[in-house]
C-alpha cells in the first residue's frame, strides 16, 4: 500500500474484429505512455503534471481518438475537448470546441491555472490559447485519412459511429450494418466506443489527478459536447481518488460516473475496486462505458461493461499490465 500508481486508457468498446496489428500498435502506444508516466513519477513529478504529460503523448499519436486522429464532426472538421482535475484542492480545467490547439489537455491545464474560470469553449477558448501562446496548428493537422473514410461510412449508414477505426475493407464486419444497433437517444449507434484517452495518477505524496481528452463522436453535430470535458462525468479527482471514463457519453453523463466512484468511496466507504465495480455495475443502466481509477493509497483499478477497453496500469511495487480484452 502507498506509493505511486498510474493508469492510462485509449477508449472502451473495441471492435472484436480489430486486426491483430492494430491491437499490437495500441498496446505499444499504451506501454510507451505508461513508461513516460512511470519515469516522471520516479523523478517525483506531481500527479497533476504526470497526467498532463501522458495525455499529451496520447493526443500527439494519431492512433486513438484525441488530438491528432480525432473523430470528425458532420462537417468534416475536428472539435476536441478535454478536462483535467487536481485532486489536491479539487481544482479543475476544461475546454471544448478546440480546433487549432495542438494539445487540448494543456489548454485545459492553462484554464485551470491561468484563468479565473474552470471551463472555456469554442472561440473563447481559442482566443485564450492565443493569448497564452500555446502551440496552434491548422485544423487539417488533426484530420487523418482513416477518419475521412470513417466519416463517409458513418454518413452512409446515417449513424453516429462509435468506433471510427473500423477497417474500411471489412465492411461486412462493420458495425454500421449490424443487425441490432444500440440506440442512443433514440438514434441507432454502432456498438463501439470512441477511443477517448485518459490518464489517472496518484503520486508518491498521495495526491491524485485525472485527465481525459477526445475528439468526440464521429459524425457528431457541430457544437456537440460529450462527457470528456465535464468534471464529474468523464473526469474527477479528489482527495481519495482520480478517475477517467470513456464510452457512451450519454451514459457517463447520466451516471455522473467519475464523481460517483469518489462519492461511494466517500459516503459508502467502499474501497477503490469495490467502488469501481459498483459504479460500472449499478450506474450505467443500459449504457456502455469503462473507467480507470487510482486511490490515494496507491491502488489502481479499472472496470468496463462493454467489449474491451484499451488500458494499461502500473504501481510502484512493480506491477504492470497492458490489455484490451477482459
Amino acid at each position: 500500500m502507498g506509493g505511486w500508481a498510474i493508469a492510462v486508457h485509449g477508449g472502451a468498446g473495441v471492435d472484436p474484429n480489430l486486426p491483430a496489428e492494430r491491437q499490437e500498435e495500441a498496446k505499444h502506444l499504451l506501454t510507451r505512455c505508461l513508461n513516460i508516466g512511470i519515469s516522471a513519477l520516479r523523478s517525483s513529478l506531481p500527479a497533476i503534471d504526470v497526467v498532463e504529460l501522458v495525455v499529451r503523448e496520447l493526443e500527439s499519436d494519431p492512433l486513438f481518438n484525441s488530438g491528432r486522429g480525432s473523430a470528425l464532426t458532420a462537417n468534416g472538421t475536428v472539435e476536441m475537448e478535454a478536462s483535467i482535475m487536481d485532486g489536491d484542492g479539487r481544482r479543475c480545467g476544461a475546454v471544448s470546441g478546440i480546433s487549432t490547439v495542438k494539445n487540448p489537455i494543456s489548454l485545459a491545464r492553462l484554464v485551470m491555472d491561468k484563468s479565473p474560470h474552470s471551463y472555456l469553449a469554442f472561440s473563447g477558448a481559442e482566443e485564450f490559447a492565443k493569448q497564452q501562446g500555446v502551440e496552434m496548428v491548422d485544423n487539417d493537422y488533426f484530420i487523418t485519412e482513416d477518419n475521412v473514410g470513417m466519416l463517409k461510412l458513418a454518413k452512409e449508414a446515417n449513424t453516429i459511429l462509435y468506433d471510427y477505426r473500423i477497417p474500411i475493407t471489412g465492411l461486412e464486419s462493420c458495425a454500421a450494418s449490424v443487425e441490432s444497433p444500440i440506440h442512443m437517444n433514440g438514434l441507432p449507434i454502432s456498438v463501439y466506443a470512441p477511443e477517448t484517452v485518459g490518464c489517472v495518477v496518484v503520486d508518491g505524496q498521495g495526491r491524485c489527478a485525472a485527465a481525459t481528452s477526445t475528439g468526440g463522436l464521429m459524425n457528431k453535430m457541430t457544437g456537440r459536447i460529450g462527457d470528456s470535458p465535464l468534471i464529474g462525468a468523464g473526469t474527477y479527482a479528489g482527495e481519495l481518488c482520480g478517475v477517467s471514463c470513456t464510452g457512451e457519453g450519454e451514459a457517463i453523463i447520466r451516471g455522473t460516473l467519475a464523481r460517483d466512484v469518489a462519492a461511494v468511496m466517500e459516503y459508502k466507504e467502499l474501497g477503490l475496486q469495490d467502488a469501481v465495480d459498483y459504479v460500472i455495475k449499478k450506474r450505467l443502466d443500459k449504457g456502455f462505458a469503462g473507467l480507470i481509477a487510482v486511490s490515494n493509497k496507491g491502488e489502481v483499478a479499472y472496470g468496463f461493461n462493454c467489449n474491451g477497453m484499451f488500458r494499461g496500469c502500473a504501481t510502484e511495487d512493480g506491477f504492470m499490465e497492458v490489455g484490451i480484452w477482459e
Partner: protein
Amino acid sequence: MGWGVALHGGAGDIPRDLLPELCQLREACLQRCLNIAIDGISAHKSPLDVVELVVCDCLLIHILKSNVCPLYFTCSDPRFKGSCPQSEASGFHVLLPVVLTNNGTVEMEACIMDGSTKNRGAVSGLTTVVNAVSLTRLVMEKTAHIYLAFDGAEAFAREQGVETVDSSHFITPHNIERLKQAKAAHSVQVDYTQPLPIVDEPQVPNGDSQIGTVGCVAVDSSGNLAAATSTAGLVNKMVGRIGDTPLVGAGTYANKFCAVSCTGKGETILRATVARDVAALIEYKGLTLKEATDFVIKESTPKGTTGLIAVSAAREVVTPFNTTGMFRACATQDGKKEIGIW
C-alpha cells in the same frame, strides 16, 4: 403524498437595505412565478414541463436578476408587455436578464433534467435564443446528443424554429454599465452593484458570480422529479466561459431521489459537484434532503458562494444558501408557501 415546487432567481450579496419598492417588485415576481409553478403542477403537468415553463417565464421577468432601479433602462419589446402587471403599473418596464462577457457580448446557457429517466439536455454560448431552457428540451428530445454549444447550438435553434432575437436585444444600457464597473474593478462578478448611486462594490472572494441565474425544481404527486436552470453567467466573464449551470451534476441534477438547481459562484459549484453531491448523500449515506443540503451548503462550499433549491422524493422542499441572500420561492401541496430574499 403531494407535489412540491421551488424556484430561485439567484443567490448573492443582496444588500439588506435594498429599496422597499424593489423588494416588493421582486417579491411580486417571485410570487407570480410560484403561482405559475403551482398552477402547472396542480393541473397535473409533468414536473419537466413545469420547470421548463417556470424558468422560461422567470426569464421574461428580469427583475429577479437585476439589482438596479429598472427606471434606469427599459426594453421596448412589445412581447414583454403584460408580463408583469405590477412592474408596469408602477412604471417599471420588463427587461431581459442577461449579463455581458468581457467583449460586451452575451452568452447564455441552460440545462434541464428529468429525474425519472435521467434524460437531460444542455446548451451553452447562446446569443440570440430567447428561451435557452426550451432549447435544452429540444436537444434532449430531438437530437442524439445531450449538450450543444455556441454556433452548433445556434444553428440547431434555427433548424428547430425556436424564437430568436437580435443579440443586441440583450445589451441594455444597464448591462453595459455593469460591465464597465466590473472592468474598472478588474473583477469578474455578477455582484450586487447599485449604479445609482455608486456604492462600494461588495467584494466577493475571488470576485465571482453571485446573481444571474434562474432555476426551478418540482416533484409531482407520483414522485417524478425534474430540475432546470438558466443563466447568462458572470459579468465580464471571458468569452467562451462555461459555468456550472449546464453541467449535469454541478449546477443542475435530478434522479429518483431528488431534484436540485444551484446558483452562486460557478467555479465553486463545479468543483464541489454540488447538485450531484446532494443526491449522492441521500443515496449513499441515507441522509434526508435537509441533512444533505445542509452539509453541502455548510461544509462542501465556502461561505458566500452557493445557494440551491431542492425537492426530494420524500416531498421535502429546501432552499438553503450560504450567501447573504437568495431570491427564492417554494410551495407544497399541503399548503406550505414561502417567498424570501434573505
